[in-house]
């Protein structure tokens, strides 16, 4: 079947996964109201809403898979039904699935409103999917807001906890600030090129019709806006505090998929829209990548709070991913997609273990709490070790293959200095990832801290198992994932080229 966008129905079909998820989010919200408020005592059936939401994610995944069978025709300048969009959807759906699977126990413990919590996760995911699936700056902005507002609320969701409230407020203020940059950038680019459509922007730039000064300022502002969203240094200040204060399931979700969504949009805007004038943003990207990798990895060395440590680790990963954007070729873009997929699994997996260890009120976040974990809870410790090795990029894990993929792209682009910075900062990162491992396996727990009984609920086990499967699976047999990611990158880059040719 060909989607030629001749009737409105085709638009609906093209957005089927998003629509399914939006409707389902509303259903979850209503179901939450029916079940009763958070003040009621926890009852036996709690957690069902998470499962209900997961069913929605599964339905959206089916819809996404079905879209692969369609041939996108010409006609839509707003919705991109390309492989890039569809691959990005897998990342967001995986993140949503894992985040929903690790949250029920926490939500129950903290007596949060189940319905709202899970519905917000779904709505944020819809925003992300739209961000990845549009060719129009205005729609990107709207989608970003849908995602961000859900994420602001989620990070402040545990409002009885001052840290969570602080996190929500901080995230909101800085997020709004950065959105301002983005919006102003969009306005200037519109002024310079006369369009908000990426294809037409590229066309205007290609034909030399764009107003150069305005355009460059606009690109710089857009770059800053995206740098805030992906938490690249020096626009990362909010990240450690927000990640530390937000409820752990939310941190897991945000650090994986909000970042992924920002990167997906970043890639589409810069590769398709501004791919024709890389010289105008190459230096910005280069320095953002280099600074982010170096500074984030060095600061992470000093962290003793595990959540904060992973926050800096996630900033460092933003640096690696920026290398892929700067490289500006198909391999690097495919690497970006592949890495984001693996990163989602390993990062949420790591947070899942942290959530299990951290105790009822999330008070056990110090590194020393991990001393002797290997002896007390070997299964958890093995899982965390796998996730850490993957984050560090060790062979046998998906993280390694992701890094190789990005490095290949960088090599193809001749970014040798950046590649060397990449690998040397990776060595630095070994130290802090291994530090958690050595606390777990090589130290004995101090007598005085009586360890909390750690419970690992069923959905949590499912999440960890799935994450381990993704991480190891892509680490040992990355072939399929690589092909898939390449198809995605090809979709992005040739779709851009097609538009250039087809646009009036």
């Amino acid at each position, binding site marked *: 079947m060909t989607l030629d966008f001749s009737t409105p129905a085709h638009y609906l079909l093209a957005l089927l996964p998003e629509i399914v998820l939006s409707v389902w989010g509303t259903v979850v919200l209503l179901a939450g109201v029916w079940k009763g408020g958070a003040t009621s005592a926890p009852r036996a059936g709690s957690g069902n809403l998470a499962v209900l939401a997961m069913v929605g994610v599964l339905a959206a995944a089916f819809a996404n898979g079905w879209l692969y069978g369609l041939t996108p025709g010409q006609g839509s300048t707003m919705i991109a039904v390309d492989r890039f969009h569809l691959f990005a959807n897998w990342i967001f759906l995986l993140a949503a699935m894992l985040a929903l699977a690790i949250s029920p126990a926490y939500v129950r413990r903290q007596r949060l409103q189940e319905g709202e919590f899970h519905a917000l996760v779904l709505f944020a995911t819809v925003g992300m999917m739209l961000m990845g699936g549009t060719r129009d700056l205005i729609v990107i902005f709207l989608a970003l807001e849908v995602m961000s507002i859900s994420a602001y609320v989620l990070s402040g969701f545990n409002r009885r906890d001052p840290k969570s409230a602080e996190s929500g407020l901080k995230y909101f203020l800085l997020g709004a600030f950065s959105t301002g940059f983005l919006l102003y950038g969009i306005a200037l680019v519109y002024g310079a090129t006369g369009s908000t459509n990426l294809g037409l922007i590229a066309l205007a730039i290609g034909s030399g019709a764009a107003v150069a000064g305005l355009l460059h300022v606009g690109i710089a502002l857009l770059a800053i806006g995206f740098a805030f969203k992906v938490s690249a240094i020096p626009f990362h200040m909010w990240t450690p505090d927000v990640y530390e204060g937000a409820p752990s399931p939310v941190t897991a979700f945000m650090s994986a998929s909000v970042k992924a969504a920002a990167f997906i949009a970043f890639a589409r805007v810069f590769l398709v829209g501004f791919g024709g004038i890389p010289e105008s943003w190459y230096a910005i990207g280069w320095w953002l990548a280099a600074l982010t990798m170096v500074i984030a990895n060095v600061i992470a060395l000093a962290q003793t709070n595990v959540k904060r440590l992973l926050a800096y680790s996630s900033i460092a990963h933003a640096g690696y991913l920026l290398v892929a954007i700067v490289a500006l070729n198909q391999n690097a873009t495919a690497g970006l997609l592949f890495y984001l997929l693996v990163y989602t699994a390993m990062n949420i997996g790591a947070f899942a273990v942290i959530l299990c260890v951290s105790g009822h009120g999330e008070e056990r976040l110090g590194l020393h709490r991990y001393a002797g974990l290997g002896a007390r809870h070997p299964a958890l410790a093995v899982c965390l070790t796998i996730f850490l*090795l993957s984050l560090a990029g*060790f*062979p*046998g894990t998906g993280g*390694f*293959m992701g890094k*190789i993929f990005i*490095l*290949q792209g960088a*090599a*193809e682009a001749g970014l*040798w200095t950046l*590649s*060397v910075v990449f*690998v*040397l900062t*990776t*060595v630095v990162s*070994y*130290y802090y990832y*291994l530090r958690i491992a*050595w606390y777990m*396996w*090589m*130290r004995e727990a101090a007598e005085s801290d009586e360890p909390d009984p750690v419970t690992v609920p069923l959905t949590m086990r499912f999440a960890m198992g799935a994450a381990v499967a993704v991480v190891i699976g892509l680490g040992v047999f*990355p*072939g399929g994932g*690589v*092909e898939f990611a*390449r198809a995605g990158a090809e979709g992005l880059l040739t779709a851009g080229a097609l538009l250039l040719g087809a646009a009036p």
Partner: protein
Amino acid sequence: MTSLLQAVAFDSWILHVLVWGPMAAMLHVLLEDEERSGHIAFGWTLALFVVSLGLWWSFTVGDPGFQMASSVPWIEAWGVHYALGIDGISLFMVLLSCFTAPITILGSFRYITRRRKSFYALMLLLQTGIIGVFTAMDLMLFYVFFELTLVPMYFIVGVWGGKRRIYAAVKFFLYTAVGSLLMLVGILYLYAATAGAGDGSFAYLDILGASLSMREQLWLFAAFALAFSIKVPLFPFHTWLPDAHVEAPTPGSVVLAAILLKMGTYGFLRFLLPFFPAASQHPSVVTVMLVLGTAGIVYAAWVAAVQPDAKKLVAYTSVAHMGFVVIGIFALTLNGIQGGLVVMISHGISTGALFLILGMLYERRHTRLTGEFGGLARVAPMLALALVITALASIGLPGTSGFVGEFLALLGTFETHPVTAVIATSGVIFAAYYMLPMVQRVLFNELDREENRSMPDLSRREIFILSPMVALMIVIGVAPTPILERMEPSVEAILERVHTTPPAEEPADS
């Protein structure tokens, strides 16, 4: 024997079995209970060793190329292959690794007392990585195995090691990782260089075909040489080694000394010389490598002479011995490289045995300070005999394996770099100067400590561990020809490549 091996199609499965057998063993160990884990691991590695012996017969003498080679695409999109094969150089590394594995595991029965299951699982995982490194014929596959050896070793040192184990484990890990990650960038450069018109490839033979200019060769040589020099370890990159050796549990030290260090010099031979022939014989490069090798020989010998801790002493002797290998290789002569290879084998056996003996002493007295012993020859004659033979082999007494290797390496070096050879030869004398007093302090002198009077001699298990090692030291010392004739064609092929391949023209735009 040969026909039997042919009948079972030995060539087609042996390398895969040797690589993945240990991993299967690991799963078996993990499924069984703690008590039996050591025996299971021993059984598997012994069986694998016995099977690996078939390589000796099925290996075609006189063929310089890769034998028993197989290749299937692993990650097709990137041109990565699961390709294994051995030549005359890797054959002995594989045999040495397979020989050391059961001995190490048997030697750990009394030393490792807690978390035994995890320990043996990690040892077996390490074994998979080791054999993989020595048989991989694809650079990405090699890199994966090369790094795979790091993680188990990190945990072996860090969990079962001595007091400063975490420091030693992390130092070991980070040092090695810096080198290998820079090598990874080099590997990707080579990959890009093979791409040319079509798809790139990581296959060893494809990369051999890539043409590189002198400048490219020198940079890549630096990236690869750093990784391997840290692993060897070549002076001045050796500082992680004494820490790692002293803190590691006995089996960890044995594998580290006997096998892991060899990965560095193996890398020199397998990758550096053939990939970058012009850089490898560049006068400055050769000078640097020879000077560092010689410096390591002399420096490590002096440092070893003043160590009160016997384990640290042996650790430094490793640096000295590996120095001989490096100068032998960079002399770029047949004798030099063959000598280097024999030193690698001999060092693997004799240093492994020394660490095992020190471990046995430690199990008895819980100290490794040589001053704490004395007169042990009277109470433990078998142990004394083993230690004396091993120490003599380590020094390089004629009639032992150490002599063959060091003599050939020095002879080969003398052919092209006489001054270096003369200075390095002093290392042999220093070796006697540090090793013999250690033996004297431990075995002879007065039996003046009460605790030493009741020290038990070697048990049957310990005799069973040490006797094959001692026997090999002497057999190789007396009759090295079967070994030399197997490695010679491959070594000659490398040398011919080094001497006859000119660098590609510099690209005009650079």
